[in-house]
């Protein structure tokens, strides 16, 4: 276990915020808004693919 800290490498940091619970309605993680496939595949993505995922996330915020 370790406190939150910025990723050391210049790579694209994971958007995980340790909520890690899938929303059954949206299919997105309630913390980072990724799909289960995006979370499972994250470590296999290139930096470019990771950035593409990050860019998709804001639009998934449910308006309140």
């Amino acid at each position, binding site marked *: *276990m370790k406190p*939150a*800290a910025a990723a050391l490498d210049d790579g694209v*940091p994971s958007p995980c*915020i340790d909520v*890690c619970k899938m929303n059954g309605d949206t299919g997105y993680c309630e913390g980072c808004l990724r799909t*289960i496939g995006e979370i499972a595949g994250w470590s296999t*993505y290139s930096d470019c693919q990771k950035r593409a995922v990050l860019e998709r996330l804001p639009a998934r915020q449910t308006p309140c």
Partner: protein
Amino acid sequence: MLKLPASIRVLERGWLSSNNVVLTGPEDTVLVDSGYLTHATQTLALVEHALADRGGRTLDRLVNTHCHSDHMGGNAALQRRYGCHTSVPAGEAPLIERWDEDALLLSYADQRAERFRVDATLAAGDRLRMGGIDWVAIAAPGHDTHALMFHSPEERILISGDALWEDGFGVLFPQLFGREATFAETRRTLDSIAALDVRCVIPGHGAPFEEVDAALERAYSRLHAFEEDPARLARHAARVMLTFALLEKQRLPLASLTDYVAQTRVLRDINQRFFAMTPQHFAEWIVHELERVRAAKREDGDLVPLVTA
């Protein structure tokens, strides 16, 4: 991007849950470490997803690098789902068998896990086959006295658990609780990693990395700083324990923190042994520290985590 054999899939998690490594070989499928209890539902979904990618197989085996809450919290749920054969380091098996909440740093540290069945134990020097690859179990005392790492000489990959991260290693708990050999053990663990042929480390937390020498250098210098000033280790541990609680609960009323640090035994003991502050002073100090390192902020009378995304 770092290239791993197709039979290895790293499920990169956060800090509350360790990474989970799915290894799918011709003989069987194995998972190394299962994350934290409160994330178990997502862990099951991730494992199922990874196995579906490999032809929809079942999970045959589960292995733990060590038995801390963030590495074994999904064990029970995985056993229910898959009935997977489960191995833990030999030194931890008795603690699991009698479910020693103190030694496992569970209720002692205000952390949770669900009791699970141990089918077999692993010891340093044991040979394992995971993902169609041969691995050797390596002793990794330090963060956890009984922890193991798994090294593949053929692939030159090390599954390091919390013995080596890209920037540091897990809190050296045994030292805090009076095991004076811990610093020397940690140094030997780093030495044994340095002596291995490793091109890639799959750590317990954070992304897999290839700059192993640089990571070792950082780990040695951190260890050196702790040896020079053990109170530094205690300060680090106090920050980590409260951050963990904060990540699990997502917010803690600031007004509750004095009671929290007085009643959570791990924090109470660290304070007694190293700082001897009043609980109120200790709570204020930790909050200040978490703000300083940007791990948390105050919001509407609560302390909330600030995970850098």
